[in-house]
């Protein structure tokens, strides 16, 4: 980076005269990186401390305030071979970290209590069949109560709070029967202890808590890991802009530092980083990432422009705006509000079960008590048996059945480069039968590619690509991607609006418009019938070549769509681009159902009508114009290159150039749903066996402990099978090398 980046808004000034900066680091791949980064930074004068977190790939640096400018640190890291991006920890993430530590503390307390109480309980069980004295047994029971009561009061909080929250909102969830079961078992055990009875259930209660907390903690840890990676990705994506100071000087700042009203300079070939209004200058913009429209639009003073647009010929000065009235952004936000409000709240599988389960269990317990009294037993025995029914049905396996599968499946998705934004997305994904794709940036790659690379002689293509490295023109960037040797030629002259030229070994080479290279006739011939392409000409000596640049399909798009169709999923294209541009894509992918020229409101209408037919719709899209449609669909996925608002609406985000993550997501979620149902069946069968035993009064604390740990382990082990879902789909559909294309920064994060 030749310019200084102004990072001052990310620096935290601490009271003791030091300054602090958090950075997300790209390019960490081995243990030696820790030393290289920390050691390298500590050699800079003024650095107090540099500490790299290898798990999250974040670096925290402290230095003497005023001793150096923060951009020096970024530059030093760049010299060492790492890219650093200022990272602002988001509130959600801090909240999740706190919650996960709290769960871990609860888990530790429950673990301690269950170990010690089990120690005492096993002594009592073996003593009961041999020669324990009633005094010793009472002592052990009191001791168990002394450990269990404070432990449950502390470690049970996650469940009690959630249950009270649900009851206040006049709903029930799985935590309500859990809390009732725990409380009743504790009260009964204390009463039995006072009555010098043989059986107490303290061990069952704390063990139940321990198992449930394990499930909760794993769930939370998985979500936090995804969140951390998403946070890093956001930091890596964070863009920079040239802000024009009061003095008229252009300073490079991160977009986060811009406020409405600031003036920003956009040079040719730069992507616009903020929404704004053109104050001066004129240019052509490629808004394909925003609206899906691939034809360029001219921008003049007074026009609104959107973040994500590519600036072509001219230099623009923008005034940063908040969403103004009548702009596309305003319309999208308005549509979003209605679409999200109308979206019916999906009821999770676990909650559905909980709703049916709680009344049945409590009714069974009540019936037990009534029947025992009717059969002539004492009220005391009847209540004890009823509580035993409640304890044995306390939904331990049931509460683990769904979350454990979710954890394992999100891990499998994570390895397929798919990140879930919302917890219940997995279940909604599994029920999808129709997929609606956006075209630009979703089925096609977000950047331009050379379409006829195979038709051009390879040495000419290589020369053109190396020459393109020296050009700032956005189309040249597409050509430059073909370069195998990434060293630009020396002494390249750029002629504005024409192209670039250079002399190599006395031969002149030119890359640019056909007229600049003297290839107008050749260009007309090459383009022929092809619509929607941009033409670049290349000349070396007397040789000429024409390169056609257009948005290319993702490399595995055809294979993925075919695999999806084979799965029986209905795939369609719904694009904001002109129908002429959509038709060839639909033909290449063998899709009969497609539509072009759809405005945001029309996209919503199309999705609503599909939903009205009773279909479960998955929307895959990336543009700003797709955001309302994503919110309206049953479930949505967007690529990581999507506009910020769009990504915030998506239930899941996928990385990389390939489309196969969409297929993986579908396959993994379907398998996960099957496993969830299986697990629920296991839990149900367990209850069908255990409840009659409890009803007849055969459930001693020993039986309860065995039954609970047995069923919980069975459910957890079954959930682990969700890991295998990825292997199958990968071997069937993706090409060799698919695995290695994962973004390196994410490994281990």
């Amino acid at each position, binding site marked *: 980076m030749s310019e200084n980046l102004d990072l001052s808004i990310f620096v935290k000034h601490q009271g003791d005269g030091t300054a602090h900066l958090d950075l997300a680091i790209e390019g960490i791949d081995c*243990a030696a990186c*820790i*030393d290289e980064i920390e050691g390298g930074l500590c050699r800079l004068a003024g650095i107090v401390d540099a500490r*790299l*977190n*290898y*798990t*999250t790939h974040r670096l925290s640096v402290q230095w003497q305030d005023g001793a150096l400018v923060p951009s020096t640190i970024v530059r030093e890291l760049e010299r060492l071979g790492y890219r650093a991006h200022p990272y602002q920890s988001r509130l959600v993430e801090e909240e999740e970290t706190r919650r996960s*530590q709290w769960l*871990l*503390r609860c888990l*530790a*307390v429950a673990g*301690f209590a269950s*170990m*010690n109480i089990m*120690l005492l309980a096993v002594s009592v069980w073996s003593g009961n069949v041999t020669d324990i*004295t009633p005094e*010793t047994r009472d*002592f052990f029971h009191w*001791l168990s109560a002394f*450990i269990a009561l404070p432990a449950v009061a502390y470690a049970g909080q996650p469940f009690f709070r959630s249950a009270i929250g649900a009851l206040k909102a006049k709903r029930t969830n799985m935590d309500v029967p859990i809390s009732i079961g725990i409380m009743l078992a504790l009260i009964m055990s204390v009463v039995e202890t006072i009555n010098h009875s043989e059986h107490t259930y303290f061990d069952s209660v704390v063990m139940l808590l321990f198992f449930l907390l394990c499930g909760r903690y794993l769930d939370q840890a998985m979500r936090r890991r995804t969140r951390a990676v998403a946070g890093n990705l956001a930091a890596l994506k964070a863009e920079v802009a040239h802000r024009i100071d009061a003095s008229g000087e252009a300073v490079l700042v991160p977009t986060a530092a811009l406020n409405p009203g600031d003036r920003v300079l956009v040079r040719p070939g730069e992507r616009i980083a903020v929404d704004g209004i053109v104050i001066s200058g004129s240019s052509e913009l490629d808004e394909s990432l925003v609206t899906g429209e691939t034809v360029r639009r001219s921008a003049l003073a007074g026009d609104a422009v959107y973040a994500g647009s590519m600036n072509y010929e001219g230099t623009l000065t923008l005034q940063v705006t908040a969403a103004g009235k009548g702009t596309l952004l305003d319309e999208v936000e308005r549509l979003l509000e209605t679409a999200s409000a109308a979206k019916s709240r999906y009821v999770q599988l676990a909650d559905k079960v909980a709703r049916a389960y709680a009344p049945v269990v409590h009714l069974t317990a009540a019936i037990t008590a009534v029947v025992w009294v009717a059969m002539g037993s004492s009220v005391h025995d009847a209540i004890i048996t009823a509580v035993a029914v409640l304890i044995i049905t306390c939904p331990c396996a049931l509460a683990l059945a769904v979350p454990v599968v979710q954890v394992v499946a999100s891990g499998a998705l994570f390895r397929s480069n798919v990140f879930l934004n919302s917890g219940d997305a997995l279940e909604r994904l599994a029920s999808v039968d129709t997929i609606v794709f956006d075209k630009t940036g979703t089925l096609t790659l977000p950047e331009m590619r050379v379409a006829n690379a195979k038709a051009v002689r390879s040495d000419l293509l290589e020369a053109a690509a190396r020459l393109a490295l020296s050009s700032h023109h956005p189309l040249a960037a597409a050509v430059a991607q073909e370069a195998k040797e990434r060293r630009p030629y020396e002494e390249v002259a750029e002629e504005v609006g024409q192209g670039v030229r250079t002399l190599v070994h006395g031969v002149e080479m030119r890359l640019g418009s056909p007229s600049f290279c003297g290839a107008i006739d050749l260009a007309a011939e090459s383009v022929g019938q092809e619509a929607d392409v941009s033409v670049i000409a290349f000349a070396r000596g007397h040789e000429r070549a024409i390169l056609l640049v257009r948005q290319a399909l993702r490399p595995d798009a055809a294979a993925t769509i075919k695999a999806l169709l084979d799965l029986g999923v209905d795939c369609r294209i719904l694009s904001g681009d002109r129908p002429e541009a959509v038709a060839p894509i639909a033909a290449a992918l063998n899709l009969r159902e497609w539509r072009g020229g759809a405005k945001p409101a029309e996209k919503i209408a199309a999705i609503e009508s599909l939903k009205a037919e009773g279909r479960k719709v998955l929307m895959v899209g990336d543009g700003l114009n797709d955001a309302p449609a994503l919110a309206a669909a049953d479930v949505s996925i967007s690529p990581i290159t999507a506009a910020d608002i769009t990504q915030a609406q998506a239930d899941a985000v996928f990385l990389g150039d390939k489309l196969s993550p969409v297929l993986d997501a579908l396959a993994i979620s379907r398998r996960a749903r099957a496993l969830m149902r299986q697990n629920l069946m296991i839990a149900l069968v367990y209850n069908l066996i255990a409840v009659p035993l409890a009803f007849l009064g055969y459930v001693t604390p020993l039986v309860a402990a065995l039954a609970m740990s047995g069923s919980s382990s069975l459910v957890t082990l079954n959930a682990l099978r969700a890991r295998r879902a990825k292997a199958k789909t990968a071997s069937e559909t993706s090409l060799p090398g698919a695995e290695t294309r994962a973004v390196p920064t994410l490994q*281990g994060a």
Partner: protein
Amino acid sequence: MEVLIYLVPVALLLGLTGLAAFLWSLKDGQYDDVEGAALRVLKDDDIRS
């Protein structure tokens, strides 16, 4: 069986010590970077200086 009167509290105390140690290590941030910790132990920083 009088031995239980002091053996049981000793056992409990040991357990509580373990719990306290875990809670302290959690608060101390020792689980913030588990992967890094495994690699840092191999660093030769005492030799270099």
